[in-house]
């Protein structure tokens, strides 16, 4: 970028908030994919007005603009692949007073997810979406990626809680869209279009989010099974029994062994699969549901079953599941976390396919994730400095994706397409649908300045 252009950005955002030093650009060049693309300039913005001025300018001179929150994404959404401006949203982090009648809270895009939940907690409410990075991630990033989490089965994902948005369009207009009412059918649903659009259509500056009352009681169950098929059958039967659990997490044998290597907490290394189930609601309902879960696990030959109702006991049960990713991450220098998602009924087939693919390429892949909603995290343990192995990893990922689609699934449950899965999108989306997406992009962003190189690439 030209020096005069940097100067202009300084006039908009202030000199201290426009940074071009290489040391900073390195740090604003990565996210949790560990890929690196340096922006030409970092701009820390304060309000929608500044963003509007920057986008008008960028649109005129065709400078790429890539919004960035806490950069914990797993598909490369905030990486400035074509250079240009990295638009840092972290300073815009205000959270309004909670409206405990309409169960709403208005937040700026840079607000941290857990802070929104804490604000709601003061009123006996909570913000249900709970992505793994919630202590760091921003609401803007969550909306861009339509982040999910552990509670997806019962409580849905980010899109289920976004009521209305303030947006800055790539051409600089500031618009408000959506409604804070429970129901609204006024025109096209732009809110749902933007949620999950990965910062390619508009920049979210403010959102009104829905909240729910905190359930009165909770119970957690840890059940182990000799084989994956029995665990999957238990999952099926729990749902068939009419219970929608708050969480229904699954950990496979490779992951169990990694956890045991790391924590040495006495897990049975021969366990085929572990389920962590949480039910919540009114006390009586929770009690009855926990009993049903127990019966179902028993019928499916679980090798062990533990029930916890107190916060402390629940915490202990969860320690293994919580350590899943850390334990896997310690096995090899690099960890690639995928989020292939299939219908609940096809989980066993996907896990078996992942194991076969791992064997075929001589790779180590641990799988854990959200069995309740079919969103699994096959995690490839590798060393990306080994170029030969990297090629195998890429082939394995492609095969996992192909199998996922075959099983009626989707490439990404909650991490987004971004950079890393863009070349696979056509496995899932037809040519006509792809063209429609491109036309939508063009309508919003005629000069392709907003987060170029993501989602739609050709």
């Amino acid at each position, binding site marked *: *970028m030209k020096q005069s252009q940097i100067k202009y950005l300084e006039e908009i955002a202030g000199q201290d908030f426009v940074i071009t*030093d*290489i*040391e*900073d*650009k*390195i*740090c*604003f*060049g*990565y*996210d*949790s*994919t*560990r890929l690196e693309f*340096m922006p*030409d300039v970092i701009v820390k913005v304060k309000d929608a007005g500044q963003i509007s001025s920057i986008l008008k300018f960028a649109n005129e001179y065709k400078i790429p603009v890539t919004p960035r929150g*806490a*950069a*914990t994404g797993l598909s490369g959404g905030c990486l400035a692949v*074509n*250079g*240009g401006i990295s638009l840092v949203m*972290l*300073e815009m*982090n205000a959270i309004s007073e909670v409206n405990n009648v309409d169960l709403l809270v208005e937040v700026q895009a840079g607000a941290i997810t*857990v802070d929104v939940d804490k604000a709601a907690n003061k009123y006996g409410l909570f913000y249900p979406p709970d992505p793994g*990075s919630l*202590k*760091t*991630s921003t609401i803007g990033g969550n909306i861009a990626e339509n982040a999910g989490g552990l509670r997806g089965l019962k409580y849905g994902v980010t899109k289920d809680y976004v009521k209305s948005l303030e947006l800055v369009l790539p051409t600089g207009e500031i618009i408000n869209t959506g409604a804070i009412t429970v129901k609204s059918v006024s025109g096209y649903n732009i809110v749902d279009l933007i949620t999950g659009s990965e910062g390619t259509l508009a920049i979210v500056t403010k959102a009104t989010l829905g909240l729910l009352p905190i359930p009165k009681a909770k119970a957690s169950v840890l059940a182990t099974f000799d084989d994956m098929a029995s665990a999957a059958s238990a999952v099926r039967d729990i749902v068939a029994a009419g219970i929608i659990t708050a969480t229904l997490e699954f950990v496979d044998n490779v992951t169990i062994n990694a956890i045991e290597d790391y924590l040495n907490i006495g897990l049975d290394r021969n366990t085929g699969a572990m389920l962590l189930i949480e039910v919540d609601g009114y006390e009586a309902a929770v009690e009855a549901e926990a009993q049903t879960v127990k019966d179902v696990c028993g019928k499916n030959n679980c090798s062990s079953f533990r029930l916890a109702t107190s916060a402390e006991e629940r915490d202990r049960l969860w320690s293994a599941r919580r350590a899943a*990713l*850390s334990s896997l*991450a*310690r096995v090899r*220098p*690099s*960890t690639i976390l995928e989020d292939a998602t299939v219908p609940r009924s096809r989980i066993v087939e996907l896990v078996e396919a992942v194991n076969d693919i791992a064997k075929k390429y001589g790779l180590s892949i641990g799988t854990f994730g959200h069995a309740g909603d079919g969103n699994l995290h096959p995690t490839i343990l590798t*060393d990306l*400095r080994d170029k030969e192995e990297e090629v195998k990893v890429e082939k394995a990922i492609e095969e996992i994706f192909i199998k996922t689609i075959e099983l009626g699934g989707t490439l990404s449950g909650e991490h987004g397409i971004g950079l890393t899965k863009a070349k696979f999108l056509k496995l899932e989306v037809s040519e006509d649908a792809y063209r429609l997406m491109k036309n939508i992009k063009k309508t919003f962003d005629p000069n392709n300045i907003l987060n170029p190189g993501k989602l739609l690439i050709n």
Partner: protein
Amino acid sequence: MADKKNNHEIKNHQSSLKTAKVFKKGDDLFACSRCGTCLAICPVYKNTLDESFAPRGKLSLIEAVANKRIPFTDRLSKKIYTCTMCDFCTSECPSGVKVNELFAAVREDLVENKKYPEVLDYLKDKIEKAYNITFDSNQGRTDWLKQVPGTDIGDYVKQTAEVVYFVGCVSSFSPRSFSIPRAIVKLLKIANVDFTLLSEDEWCCGFPLLGSGMRQEVKTLAEHNIEAVIKRNAKVLLTSCPSCFHTWKHEYEKLTGIKAGFEIMHVSQYLLKLVKEGAIKPGSLNIKVTYHDPCDLGRNSGIYDEPRQLIKSIPDVELIEMASAKKQANCCGGGGNIESLDPALSAKIADNRAEEVLLTGAEIALSACQQCERTMGTALKKKKSEGGVKLKAMDVAELLLKSLESEQN
């Protein structure tokens, strides 16, 4: 959009990089997955909201240096040194990256490349000339004691003794902290412990230099101090400063190769032992307190329980934990050399911790570190002047002494 300036800089990386210590840490550097877990806990990141000051950012800069993408620069140096060394990131890193070791290595590299904050030269100069972190003569090591009326210095500085109390520079020279060593020696006297101070034979433990990346300079200090304790025929070395404790316990042997034949204990551990043996009988105090884990005592040395047991040994004291405690305790802002490098940031971090203290409803914020006591005390005082808050910071030893004195009244 090629960046000409970058290319130029990258071509000019220094030849001294050949010796860079961070090279040896290749695997660890690569193991950072950039997951961002450290952002949620790093006190520096939380108060700057700037990725380049976060552990993950610093690691990416170290990696860039190791890969010769960039040279050691002043800007990089400032980012690296803006750290409280609380090591929360190291203990929470899901991938188990030894962040603290990498940071220590890069600081040594920065020192070798003469890219470190000027104020650290001043500090080094002070320690080399006066063997303490002030410019005062080291003979003033026991001045805090002389100010206690009726003190016979001979009772406190002996040729040999079973226990050596290593007071530390801050408690020895900063009047603000004198009440801590005074409480400790009073308690040791009450318990009839055969102890001595090293007086001017006590040299700075070297912790501030270790944190600065000046490891080599610490060896002489370590050798002198170990020798001084051996000369006293002591069985136990006591420190009240957690950073002295950490340095004695985890660094001295590595630096000197000398295996100390005496036990190294923190005062909180030793006082608890005295209470358990019945040598000290705590009096009753009807008061609500909270306890702040000093980073060098808690996370860096694993001592969480003894200070708490000591507090609970005082009848009627109610200990209320803060939202973050033990291994997950937030830093007070006084760690590393950040207080001299960026006082405003240090104060902000202290203010965050003071907020946690207030939420407990405690009347006294306890710690087992003169530095934590000072930073939190200042933050709490500021809150007091803003209105409404009646709360003071205190060392656990001071509370124990207070309980004895209240019993006498």
